[in-house]
Every structure is written in C-alpha cells, then in structure tokens.
C-alpha cells in the first residue's frame, strides 16, 4: 500500500497545494478583513488537490487489476491526510483572526475534501480516468470567485464574512454539514462497490455502455462493474 501511495499520488502537486494553502491562510491571518476571500480560495485549493490525488491515469489497467477502488483510494489516503493536517495547522495558527469561527472554517476545508473525494471516487467508479483534475480546474477558480463575490450572501452564505450571527455562520454551518453528510454517504456507497444496484441502472446512469448478458460476454470481465 505504501509503494502504491508513493507511486500513484502526484506528490509534487500535493506539496504545491499544501504550500499554497498555508500561504493563503497566513494572508488571511494577517489581514482578515481585506484578505478573507482567500479563505474560500484555500478551500478550493484543498478540494482540488484532494480530487487530483484520486486520479488514475492508468485506469484501463488498474480497473482490471485485483485491487479494488476502495483499496486504491485508501492507499492514497496519506496524501489526503497530509492536506487535512496542513489545513488543521493553518486554521489553528490563524486562531482568533478567523472572526472567532475557527471550527466553522475548519469544517469548510474538511467538507470540501470529503466532497471532492466523493465526487472523484464516484466518477472513477464510472470509469472516468481523470475526474479529479477536471474537478480541480473548475472548483479552484469557482471557490475563489464565489468567495470574492459572495452572491446570495443573505440566503446562501457559503463563506461568511465578518464576526457575529449577522454574517450567517449558523446557516453556513448547516449547509456545509448537509454537504458533508451527503459526501460521506456517496463516498461510502461508491467505495462499497454498490453491488446492490442493478447493473443496467448503473450503466445507464454513469454513461458506461451496458454489458450484454453474462452468457454472451465471451469470458470478458468488466473493468468497472462487479462480476
């Protein structure tokens, strides 16, 4: 498993992301009122990096190998744990600069990582080789733009700004918790291989051509679906 992690994880990108997260959160710590949008950017970096860790460029090979998606995902866990450790350190170091909402800010990062892992694993299970890089390229600038503009701030405070109840921290917390729970459910369901789902439904839903009945496969094994 360690050997798999050493070779499969894009460690350079993970380290770049970790350094970027630390730098962004340090700027937030120093000038929270001016630099607060960078908290959203840092969350985007975390999500993007976590997703990118789960990409498998050699999907056609590894999907047919005996090691299942769950094993391979767990093997990449150290990279995700590193990202979470960096996030925890950055949030702890920022301390009271986070408008007194250290736990909420910490929750943003943890849920973003969980959601990114869930989505990427789900797409991986569907056969996509590099869904993480696609997600990263989208989520990083989107999180940054959303944190800058803060649209629907009154009703949908994703990255609340300022101290006190008026900033919408409680609403935001509820939203992040819902997303987090959904992400964990999706992640567990995906990694559990979803054997209880009808094969035809999975194929139709995930865009994978449905397999012919078992008798007509000519001995071919699906690289994606459980046999």
């Amino acid at each position, binding site marked *: 498993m360690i050997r798999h992690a050493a070779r499969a994880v894009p460690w350079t990108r993970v380290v770049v992301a970790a350094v970027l997260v630390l730098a962004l959160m340090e700027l937030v710590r120093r000038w929270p009122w001016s630099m607060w949008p960078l908290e959203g950017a840092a969350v985007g970096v975390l999500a993007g990096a976590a997703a990118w860790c789960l990409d498998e460029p050699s999907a056609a090979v590894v999907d047919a190998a005996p090691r299942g998606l769950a094993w391979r995902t767990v093997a990449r866990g150290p990279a995700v744990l590193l990202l979470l450790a960096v996030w925890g350190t950055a949030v702890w170091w920022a301390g009271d600069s986070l408008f007194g909402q250290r736990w909420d800010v910490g929750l943003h990062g943890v849920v973003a990582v969980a959601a990114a892992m869930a989505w990427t694993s789900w797409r991986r299970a569907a056969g996509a080789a590099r869904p993480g890089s696609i997600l990263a390229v989208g989520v990083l600038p989107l999180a940054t733009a959303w944190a800058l*503009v803060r649209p629907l701030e009154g009703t949908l405070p994703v990255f609340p700004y300022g101290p006190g109840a008026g900033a919408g921290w409680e609403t935001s917390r509820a939203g992040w918790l819902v997303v987090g729970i959904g992400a964990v459910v999706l992640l567990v369901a995906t990694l559990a291989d979803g054997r209880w789902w009808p094969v035809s439904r999975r194929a139709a839903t995930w865009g994978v051509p449905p397999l012919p009945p078992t008798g007509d496969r000519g001995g071919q094994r699906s690289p994606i679906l459980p046999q």
Partner: protein
Amino acid sequence: MNTVTATQNSTLGPLARQEIRNYLRSRLFWVGAALLALMSYVGLTGPDDRFSTVGDGLVPAAVIGLLGIIVMAGMTRNSDRAAAAAGAVAVPQRTRTLALASAVVVPATAGLLWFATAIVGYHLHPPAADAIPFGPVGDGFVYAGMFVEGVMACIGGPVLGLVIGRWLPGRGVAPVVAVVLVPVTIVMQPLFESVEQWRVFWVWVHFYGPVGVDGDADRAAILTGSPYLHIAYLAALCVLGVLVALHRDPESDRSRLRTAILGVVAVAAVLAVLSMLGGEDERVPNPIPSSSATS
C-alpha cells in the same frame, strides 16, 4: 497577398467562429455568466444603499475574468490537441492563436452587458452623498472606474489564459495563477497607502472606494491616478498578451513579433506612467463623513 497568407486569412474566419462557439460551450463560462446575471439583477433592483453599483466591478472581474483564465487556457490546450490529431496539414499555430484571441469577444460582451446594467442601476439608485462621486469627479470618472474593474478584467483574464495556454500548458498552472492573482490584486487595490501611486502598473485596480481616514474607517475617497488612461494601459497589455502568445509559434516571424512586442511594451509603460501622473495627485477623501462615523 501570397497564397499562404490568403489561405491563412480564409481559415481564420471559420476558425474564429468555431472558437467563439467553443467559448460559448464552456460550462465554467455559463456558471460565471449566471452569477453575473444574478448580480446584475441585484444591481438593477436593489444595489448597495450607499455606493449603488459603483463597487460592483469586482463581480465580472471574478466570475468572467478570473474564470476566463481557466476557460481560455483549456481552449488553447484543446486547440493544440486538435491540431496534433490533424497532423501535418493542420492550421498554423499563429492562425489558431488569433482565432482563440477572437473568442474574447464572448466574455467582453458579457462584461459590456454588465456595464450597461450597472450604469442603469447607478442612475436608478444613485449613490449616497457620503459615497462616490463627489467634488472633483463626476459620473464619467465612475464609469471609467467601473470599466477598468469590470469590462477590462473580462477581456484581460481570457487573454492571460491564452498566454498561459501557449507558454505554460500544464493543466494545473492556470488555476494556480488565477488564485495567486487574487491576493496580489487585493494588495494593489491598495491594501497599503505606500503602494497607492504604483498600483496602476498592476491590473484591475480601484480608483475610489471606502478606504477610510483617521477617525472614520469607512470614509469614501478618490484615489490617485487616472482611470481613463488606465483603460488605455490595460488595452495595451491585452495587445501585448496576444503578441506574446503569437510569439510562441516557432514558425512565425519572430523578429517582427519581437519588434512589435517591444513597441507595445514601450507604449504600455508610457500609458502606465501617464495613468499614474494623471488624475488626482493624492488621495481626496469625501468631505461628508460616512454614516458609521456619524452614528
């Protein structure tokens, strides 16, 4: 006109239309456009009580300009992939780069639409007396400031994406550049008074805002520099970006391009200096205190 040039020109039109369609097919662009439409609606119906829409330039800059970096860098990669797949008869990189640059018309149109709604919102819900404009500046100054922050960012972002796509085509580069651009731009708004004069060398900077004075942290003020000349400076930077992207083509006439690049750099430098020296010499605070200071 020789045969090769004529062929390239005849290819450019259809290719440019194709790249415009590709930009319009980008989901990231439409997410940004939806957010921009939402915020434009808010600007028309119920903008900020004090500043109206004069500070809304950040919205198109973030959701069209910033995302435009990613969209255009991705389109450049796709164009290169398609050319590689087409083989030796592919269209020259120069023509493809120009076609990609033509696609900037899409985010520019989005920016101009926002600009129109922002001006309508500005007149429907004028800013308060303790905001902007006041004293030495009028509506034209506000329009120019909004144009710098909003429309020029919608054009400049994708052009930057084109440069990144040509010179640093790695998939993770454009998002990282987009994120790094944000703190630098915040610092240059200016975060510190010491960089106020020099900030005009950066892009998409403020020329007014609630920057505060001693005893009134929310006081509106006009900052140094001329937004009119800054628009010309940013336009020169966009031209420079396209030329730098064209310079990547190994088959292009690089000596002529280098001369053109040096010429545009010189013009941009002059415009930046003029932008710094024009306008107000020093920060001019609104004589009317902000409501937070009086309450």
